[in-house]
């Protein structure tokens, strides 16, 4: 266990929290509910009062954004005549061109789910702050909604590409750790198979955009159910997961994980501390490189060269000498290296 991590669940405006501070929450628990405004109803205020459209706004008894109850007075003229609201809903305003008031009836209650388990630290105006008993990995990008599920690993090595064939019904509802890349086809299939989320070392920007475009089209034509998220841990392109991280993820297969694609976060519950990263590595430390041609490769920093030296691109930089895991020795700008540190046990 690595103590607790704080996580903020954003509440859209108009949402009503259904938990209070110190409450214990589960991943699937409803933290708040909201009612989305629906197709607005037009109320002909002009006709009711025989007034020109330009004078209607002054007669309204509510401001835009206020909730009006069915049957409650919506407008009143100086003579005391009243017009009742025909439905309960949010007053959106009044059209000065035709004098109609727009009331958007509120739809059915929709849940706001936290996708993590833990304890409510605070309930704020636009967020619920949770203490999550687990650890969090920060990715460099991602897409999709917040999801949770059991962590599972679908590739044998961190450099392996996640193929569509590796996704089957056993992955339904799970968060699948892939390798260095997944095509738009693989991601689409995973979503169709009911996979909750995919964790990758890298993905081609084009593949991710294609996948997002497919999802957008499917959402527009309707029929898309469930949530799905993708998290990138290392970078864009074909980039393997750092072997240390991969080993840690593999050792936590079976635990509950929560993936926040758009925010680039992966919570693993009840987990041991993951390998951490630190800028400016020291000689002898294990490092991972972040830019081409060594992007995603791990090794050991064996020396730091004195003075500035030109990179192959010509930029003078502090350079480190890295013995990569494939045995190759290569100079890499220190700015492109992170030390990867395994947390001390106990």
């Amino acid at each position, binding site marked *: 266990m690595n103590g607790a991590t704080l996580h903020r669940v954003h509440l859209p*405006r108009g949402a009503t929290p259904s938990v209070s501070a110190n409450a214990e929450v589960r991943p699937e628990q409803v933290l708040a509910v909201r009612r989305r*405004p629906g197709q607005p109803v037009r109320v002909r205020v002009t006709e009711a009062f025989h007034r020109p459209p330009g004078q209607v706004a002054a007669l309204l008894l509510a*401001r835009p954004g206020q909730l009006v109850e069915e049957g409650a007075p919506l407008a009143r003229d100086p003579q005391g005549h009243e017009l009742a609201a025909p439905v309960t809903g949010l007053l959106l305003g009044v059209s*000065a061109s035709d004098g109609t008031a727009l009331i*958007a009836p509120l739809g059915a209650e929709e849940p706001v789910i936290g996708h993590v388990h833990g304890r409510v630290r605070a309930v704020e105006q636009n967020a619920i702050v949770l203490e999550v008993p687990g650890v969090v990995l920060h990715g460099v990008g991602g897409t999709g909604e917040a999801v949770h599920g059991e962590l599972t690993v679908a590739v044998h090595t961190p450099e392996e590409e996640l193929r569509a064939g590796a996704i089957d019904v056993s992955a339904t509802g799970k968060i699948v750790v892939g390798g260095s890349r997944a095509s738009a086809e693989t991601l689409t299939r995973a979503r169709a198979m009911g996979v909750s989320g995919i964790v990758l070392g890298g993905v081609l*920007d084009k593949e991710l955009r294609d996948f997002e475009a497919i999802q957008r089209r499917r959402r527009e034509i309707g029929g898309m159910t469930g949530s799905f998220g993708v998290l990138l841990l290392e970078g*864009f392109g074909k980039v393997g997961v750092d072997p240390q991280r991969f080993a840690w993820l593999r050792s936590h297969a079976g635990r509950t994980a929560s993936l926040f694609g758009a925010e680039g976060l992966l919570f693993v519950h009840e987990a041991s501390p993951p390998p951490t990263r630190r800028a400016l590595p020291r000689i002898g430390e294990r490092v991972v490189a972040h830019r*081409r041609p060594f992007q995603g490769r791990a090794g050991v920093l064996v020396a730091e060269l004195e003075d500035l030296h030109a990179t*192959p*691109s010509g930029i003078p930089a502090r350079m480190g000498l890295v013995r990569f895991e494939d045995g190759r020795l290569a100079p890499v700008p220190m700015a492109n290296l992170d030390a990867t540190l395994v947390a001390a046990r106990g």
Partner: protein
Amino acid sequence: MTDERPAADAPAPEAEPSTERPAELERPLAAAEMTLLVDAGSAWTKAALVARTRGRWRLVAHDAQPTAWGEEALRGTLAARIAPVADRRVADRLRQLLGAAPRISCHTPRRAGRLALAAVSVELSGASARRAAESAGWTVEVAATADDGRSLVERLALLQEVDVDAWLLAGGFEAGRADQALEIAGLVAAARGGSGAPVIWAGASSLADEVTLMFEPDAVGVVPNARPSASEEDPLPLRHALEGLLQRVIEPAGTRQHTPVAFRRSVAQLARTTGRRIVGVDIGAHYLTWVRSDEEGAAESRVFAAGGLAAARQASGGPGRLARWMPMAIDELAVADVLQNLNARPATLPQTEDELAIVHAAVRQQLAVALEADGVAGTELDGIDLLIGAGRSLAAAPRPAQAAQMLVDGVRPLGVTQLALDAAGVLPPLGALDDAEIAEGMGVLRDDLLVPLGTSVVCRGGRAGQLLMRIEIHRTGWPAIGPLELRSGQLQVVSLPRGHDAELEIELHNGASLGGPRRTRRVTASAMGGVVGLVLDARGVPLGLPRRTDDRRAVLASWRDTFGREAAVPALDAAMAGVR
């Protein structure tokens, strides 16, 4: 530098240097007079060491490193840099001396202001309001307009989801009454609920009262219409209001130490001191700032919070547009991945030539996009005496010619313009000083402040292949060069070393223009030398490229080769030899 104390209100981005002097420094040892100028960016921290040497204050070392490395590492690097030349009485205490040295610092704002924009039209009121907001340091998180193709419910849902610091409403011309503007304001009132975030109305003034009534008292600030008519735009009052609001909402403690503000103050002071019209552009990982100052020091600036390199992926046209500007065959997919990685890890360096070419193309694009977005076409940037480039990508270009090319290609300064680079990153920290001290600091550092790149002569007009300029270059004590003939589309770089001045006699032909109100055929101008020289540019404003891929790459490669003339940095192989 006479300021021996740290700027009192200069916030430290990381660890504040200790105010207690180390015990050994209290001993009567040789005094070390030095000041550290620090610009802590969101990705890179730039530091310059100014010290008294042989009776004069000089810039003795500078360095840039990822901000995440921390200050101790920065001090270590600077100490190592000056150790070989430092007075040996203080050589072993350089780190401590640097730690105790007075420090003048500035930093990138912690975060940008987030804005929701609602307007009547995407193209008119919406575009004007967006441009004003984005050049005032805000990011537009969401925009809803009456003609955006969404249903009313979708628009409402969109506005309800977003988490913002302020709301900006625009719409309606001054001459008529726009009911749609009232409807969109009502929509915002409904979506905003009781969030309490301030609202700015920058639409038709006749609707201001009605809009104000839709919100709680004091929620709405009214500014003059940013789009008074279809053909007229007046973004200045809105931009100033948004700049003020940004300070109140995001940084109530003040913004003088913010790099974009400090950069503007420095450029203004430099213009005042030198009596020259100056444009400065500072491109960082996230922010892009451009400042224009007249010779009196009256400066206008634009701060694009999402205008830096990290945002290059989101620019209009995306990676495809950028790939068109590569002189070598790099496919769009690779460009997209590099831009995304730049966004994900802005404090890393392009290690391969291809990646560097992509980064440089991104700098050119972001400069051009920022000027376009603000409605400042290259043609309006005439009459500028000095163009200053700042920011890590420009300063760290392996060859000064690459920095010069990024500036000239991105900004397209029409006319005769001196080019310079803030290579040490000293302008922003100096701008964080008090008004009087900025001038003093610049006076002290006059010889080291900027790296002169040379002078550009950019013209527009004419048709392909036509003769546009005939230039004769006169230098005292040297034979005249030329006349050099430049035809439309041609670029030529003539050596004019640093410290050398030249008189240019320029004859314009076939409708070519160097800007300015008069269409003069003969122009005489002064040119200052620099590490690149004299850039004679008849490629037009804006730059155009051939349609065919091979032709385009050939043209881009020829421009690159024309600019690049210096020796490269010492190769790595020699240093590696011993290690192997």
